[in-house]
């Protein structure tokens, strides 16, 4: 996160930062929270809705970047895992509604459970085999919703009743900014609050023993095994953590979109998430955040370009996935470290003399 990239002029300020990882991450999250409140209060309802969308992409992307970047397991099935979270939320917020935090936790738990099953199979696979198996998951799971159409609503999907802002929350924000609370804004707060919490947990996890051993497993299986690490367990654990994030993301998605339907969880969703983490830089939470911003703010931009260039609406809507594909290829060929890798190289270059090569592509 931002606090870790420190150039010389900022060196003096470094002494005032907390020395523990938790402290620094907490400080970063607090700063981010202030930024989120400022941005959400100062932007239009349309931007609020876009930011709400970005929050659930980002929650899934940070989970995926931990799995793929840190532990070296690729997953094309995160769209399907998001579907599990979204449907769990839709069912729990249905007729006899439970409070939404309970629904979100349940969504994370159920998806984590699915992650145990998938992860146990995935732990034995690597590279193209894992990609193929998770691709099958992404293509297959939406079929379940159609098969159990009595419970899960078939093609139409399940409507979700989004939570409304509690009065104390609306009052507190009115006190701060004198703005009224809109439903889109509340959902954006909900999404970003969840995202910041997830990022705090993941940042600490990445700096902990688990982050270290996951990297060890990624970089050299044999050496890690000789060092006494249990590869299978560690891989399953990484998958479970990542799946729980995807489940939370699906839960936020269901509440923001107000619908859980199979058409929302196509293979393109899984591949978009992959694009986000690859573009941002595999293994970097900040990169995943950047990539998710790309997923939200790029499509309208290229669609407008397309329509002004004379494409029909349907054609222009396909420009965004086209750009994803091109960007995926170009990033891997030109800068496999993604945006964060480029930034890191830039800083390393400016700090001439330091021979750290922390970025080796990151895509093992």
């Amino acid at each position, binding site marked *: 996160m931002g606090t870790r990239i420190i150039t010389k002029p900022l060196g003096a300020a470094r002494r005032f930062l907390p020395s523990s990882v938790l402290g620094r991450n907490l400080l970063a999250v607090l700063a981010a929270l202030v930024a989120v409140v400022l941005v959400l209060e100062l932007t239009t309802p349309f931007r609020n809705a876009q930011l709400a969308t970005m929050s659930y992409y980002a929650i899934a992307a940070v989970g995926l970047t931990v799995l793929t970047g840190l532990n*070296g397991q690729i997953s094309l099935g995160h769209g399907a895992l998001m579907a599990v979270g979204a449907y769990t939320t839709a069912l729990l917020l249905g007729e006899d509604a439970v409070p939404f935090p309970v629904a979100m936790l349940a969504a994370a738990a159920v998806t984590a459970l699915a992650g145990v099953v998938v992860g146990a199979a995935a732990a034995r696979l690597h590279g193209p085999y894992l990609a*193929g198996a998770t691709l099958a998951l992404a293509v*297959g799971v939406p079929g379940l919703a159609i098969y159990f159409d009595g419970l899960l609503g078939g093609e139409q999907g399940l409507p979700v009743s989004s939570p409304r802002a509690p009065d104390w929350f609306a009052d507190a924000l009115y006190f701060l900014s004198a703005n009224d609370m809109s439903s889109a804004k509340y959902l954006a707060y909900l999404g970003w609050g969840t995202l910041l919490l997830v990022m705090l947990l993941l940042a600490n996890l990445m700096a902990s023993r688990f982050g270290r051993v996951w990297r060890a497993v990624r970089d050299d299986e044999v050496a890690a095994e000789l060092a006494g690490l249990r590869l299978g367990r560690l891989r399953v654990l990484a998958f479970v953590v990542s799946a729980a994030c995807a489940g939370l993301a699906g839960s936020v998605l269901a509440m923001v979109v107000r619908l859980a339907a199979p058409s929302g969880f196509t293979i393109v969703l899984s591949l978009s998430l992959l*694009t986000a983490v690859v573009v941002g830089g595999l293994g970097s939470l900040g990169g995943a955040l950047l990539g998710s911003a790309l997923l939200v703010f790029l499509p309208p931009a290229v669609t407008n370009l397309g329509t002004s260039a004379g494409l029909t609406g349907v054609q222009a809507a396909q420009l965004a996935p086209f750009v*994803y*594909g091109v960007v995926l290829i170009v990033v891997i*060929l030109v800068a496999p470290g993604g945006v964060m890798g480029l930034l890191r190289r830039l800083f390393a270059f400016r700090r001439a003399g330091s021979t750290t090569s922390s970025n080796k592509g990151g895509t093992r």
Partner: protein
Amino acid sequence: MQQFLNITLGGLSQGAIYAAFALALVLIWRATRIINFAQGAMAMFTTYLALAVIESGQSYWAGFAVALAGGLVLGAIVERVIMRRVEGGPELNAVIVTLGLFVGLQALAAIIFGAAFQSFPAPFGLRGFTFGELTVAFTPFSVFIVGSVLVVMLALVALFRFTDLGLRMRASAFSQEVSRLLGVRVGRMLTIGWALAAVVGSLAGLLIAGGNLVHPAYMDAVIVYGFVAAVLGGLDSPAGAVAGGLIIGLALSYVSGYLGSELVTLAALAILVAVLLIRPKGLFSRVAERRV
């Protein structure tokens, strides 16, 4: 009984197509250790080329030829321009690049040809043969499917067994270093390999499309089935890919016929997981040990 017969026959002709698709994956895997996840998108693209030719008033066969030629060119370009740079690198990079191709080509097809469903003609009748009272689900087009897949397989066997080019391709797939020392132009062999695989993939795309509706995502599930078939056959063995394709075709046909068509992709996933966990080297591979 008649239902069982029809489901079996339908499964066989579908299986022949999956076999061709799996064969295309295996050809590339043997040469470069890359699974081409863009295979389906490439086949979809060339099928749209054929459709464009047919809709401009040409015959089905003109479109057929254009699609296969388009596959040849597309495969060669993809290998030479894009894949060459990730061959031999980290395996995740190659996976991600083929996925990028997958998304990009699919969107490009929607931009150029439209995202709507379009019907694709079949060169032969789609009415089942009748024996006395009984009409079976095996059509003249099914005969064409099985026949053309057989022809392609025999042609590939002949190429690899009896020609100098085939020998050089096998050599560069077996050991790039040694082949290079012996004067084989390995890079060119890889390009030819990708081009050939794309032709076989295009054929599979055309055969699935025949008499059906096409849209930019119509090959998505076929990638999964082809991959499962290839893994079932051991990924390294062309004969295994063919057998795997037939087994998958039959198995999925039974699932679709008796349990429901929504479960077909999940059944494919279940078969894949079962194979990878129980016998990861595949049913037909001669390689003793392989890490998946």
